[in-house]
């Protein structure tokens, strides 16, 4: 296992808050520690509780598993989490009682609520009335109009910051979950890469990858896997509002042809935690010298960031290091970032190098327990470019890598 611990490279030295990252996560302990983090945020912000409607927030607060559902199905049949300040456990309202954690007390597991429907909003009002006094100050992540009409009497504040603050620091068990999700993702990608050849379609790669991911133990899909063919120049790629690259575009039955450069991006989840596989593949060809150089440059940029990554370093310093290693050219796409966090969402805080701007990055300080997906992009106008993702967790002394270190078909001989 690679790590940035300086003098010692032993994985046992990778600690977060003095705790080692376990090989196998203790899921009950993980849920309990997340609950403590949420309770801490409620106290700090003087909130009486939270009402959560977004899938990933519900997963974080309760540990509830839900089958993967497309957007509107996920909305109509959404699970709802209610966190009451000072309570010992979250309340979960769900259709999917088979996904409720075994340690959730019986009186905290309830049948579904339908906050999207006027027909049923009275049950929601009644449920919230059981947990909160009139006038309570409650964080909420999403409001439906039915709720705005049918659930009066509370002071609503945005829960986004509360959730983000709790989620940004991962417990050692959470890091173990991300590492395992990533491991499953990378194993399934071995089969997909093996299937890659001229004449295969993007959807054929999805077919091979997804089948294998579920056989191996993935809990749910995340995003539709991406196998974007990168045109050699910006001009030849899709038009964009900012003139920079378009990425990621949606998978179709597009045929992959000899010499195509493919930027792969896929996330499957395990126990609610998202993985993030990013690599560059070539169709029917080995990397030529120019492509090897693109990879080397990518590695130099990633290593420049990893070289300074440790608690106390600011996001802005990481951005500067990346840009300097790329000869002054910002090595990421305009609408994205140098790096992003990953957890119960595919992209969450810390977001590094976004349109929040330099002041934001200056104040965003790396801390033990942050998980960072580094995804620099090396663009070589005329010959496409190289993109991959390295996932690391910031530890007490440096970082530990959570993603694998194979970059096939690049790397060898580079």
């Amino acid at each position, binding site marked *: 296992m690679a790590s940035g611990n300086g003098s010692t490279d032993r994985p046992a030295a990778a600690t977060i808050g003095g705790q080692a990252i376990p090989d196998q996560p203790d899921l009950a302990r993980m849920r309990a520690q997340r609950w403590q983090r949420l309770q801490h945020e409620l106290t700090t912000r003087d909130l009486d509780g939270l009402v959560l409607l*977004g899938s990933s927030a519900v997963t974080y607060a309760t540990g509830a598993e839900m089958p*993967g559902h497309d957007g509107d199905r996920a909305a109509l049949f959404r699970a709802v989490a209610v966190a009451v300040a000072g309570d010992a456990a979250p309340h979960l309202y769900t259709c999917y009682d088979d996904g409720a954690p075994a340690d959730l007390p019986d009186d905290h597991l309830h049948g579904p609520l339908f906050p999207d429907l006027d027909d049923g909003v009275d049950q929601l009002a009644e449920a919230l009335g059981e947990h909160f006094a009139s006038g309570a100050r409650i964080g909420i992540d999403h409001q439906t109009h039915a709720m705005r009409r049918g659930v009066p009497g509370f002071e609503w504040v945005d829960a986004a910051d509360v959730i983000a603050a709790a989620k940004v620091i991962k417990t050692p068990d959470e890091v173990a979950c991300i590492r395992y999700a990533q491991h499953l993702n990378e194993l399934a990608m071995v089969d997909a890469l093996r299937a890659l050849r001229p004449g295969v379609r993007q959807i054929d790669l999805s077919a091979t990858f997804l089948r294998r991911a579920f056989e191996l133990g993935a809990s749910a899909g995340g995003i539709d896997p991406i196998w974007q063919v990168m045109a050699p120049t910006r001009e030849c790629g899709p038009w964009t509002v900012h003139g920079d690259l378009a990425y990621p575009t949606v998978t179709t039955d597009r045929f992959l042809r000899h010499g195509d450069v493919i930027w792969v991006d896929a996330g499957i989840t395990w126990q609610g935690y998202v993985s993030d596989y990013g690599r560059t593949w070539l169709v029917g060809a080995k990397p030529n010298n120019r492509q090897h150089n693109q990879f080397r440059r990518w590695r130099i940029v990633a290593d420049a960031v990893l070289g300074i990554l440790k608690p106390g370093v600011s996001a802005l310093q990481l951005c500067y290091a990346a840009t300097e290693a790329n000869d002054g050219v910002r090595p990421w796409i305009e609408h994205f970032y140098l790096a992003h966090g990953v957890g119960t969402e595919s992209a969450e805080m810390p977001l590094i190098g976004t349109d929040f701007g330099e002041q934001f990055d200056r104040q965003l300080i790396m801390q033990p327990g942050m998980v960072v997906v580094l995804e620099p992009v090396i663009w070589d106008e005329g010959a496409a470019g190289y993109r991959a993702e390295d996932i690391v967790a910031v530890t007490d002394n440096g970082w530990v890598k959570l993603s694998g270190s194979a970059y096939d078909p690049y790397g060898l001989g580079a």
Partner: protein
Amino acid sequence: MSPVPRDRGVLIGAMGLEDDARVDFARLRAQRRAKVFAGMETHHVDALMLGAVGNVRYVSGARTLGRFGVLPFAPLAVVVAETARVHVLSTWDEGVPPEIGRDQLYGMSWNPVKLMEALAAIPGLRQARRVGTDGLTPTIAGLLSQLVTTAELVDAGPVMAAARRIKTPDEITCLEVASAIAEAALTALDEALAPGITERELLGVYYEHVSRLGVPYPPSESVCFATPTRGPVRYRHLVSDRPVGQGELVVLAPGALYAGYEAGLARTRPVGESVPPDAGKLASRCARGMDALLAACRAGNTGADLYRAWQDAGNREAPLPLAHGLGLGAEPPLIGLGRGSRAALEEGMILCVQSWVAEQGVGGCLERATVLVEYRGSSTLTRYERLK
């Protein structure tokens, strides 16, 4: 190609045909947009800001990245009545239909303030008096009140639900194609089903099959579960690693999307040789419940008629919906779980109808179909042999 083929079967495929025989997507989108603009006029809504996946797709027709789960509200599409234009959050033009010009795209932002700046530049939006949204967050509500200071934020639901409820002929064709894909997936699951295979492996078979058919992104991963021959039987949504056992009844419930339109289908199959003696009886009870529900699916009836039909067929309260709307994903009405008694069934609605029965010592049995509500009855779009 005649405008209306006598054999509708020629429409049920995903391949592009040179004679434009199949769904005319430009017409489909134009008819959807026309319904939205008409609804905005009826409800005096000057602009819509939409974030729900189905609504965004309905107004824009843009192919956006599929992802599971539901996110808090964000304005992903904007419709302005005055200019009769649809604007979409997309940083690039790939996947955006030709009627939406490049100047109607606004790029993705992480910073909500930047997003609001992009919205402020949309012609006609700042002058809107009544703006309909399909959700809000406290932060976005605050930012929107700065953007459109004089506007009243109202519910986009009446406009969007009314537009989406009754399907156009092109939408129904899309739902028929989705039905055929769901049938193909059911065949693949049926063939793979054997003692010893795990639910997880069956989900893998499903994913592989629908991906190769061009729909890698399914409506739901809740597609199969084995029911026990001993002990309590409950409906399960999540796949397990448990191998399917001899004599068990296994629910196979694959859905499929075509151009965003969702069809669902379910059948239950016994595994292996030693089928419990009462499995046939359970299957008949399931079929009777289904037939009763289907008979109640006709224009003019309400959700209460479905509840009554279900009870009259000898069933108690079901732990899952008797029916819900389908279109660009799942939609209202929801009939079952105590909701939807007053929901009116109208000609041209599509429903997912389902019958779930269970008996300790035998197992569980699910039938699910995608159904078009008609004037005097209904047509079932999904076809598959029943368990006997």
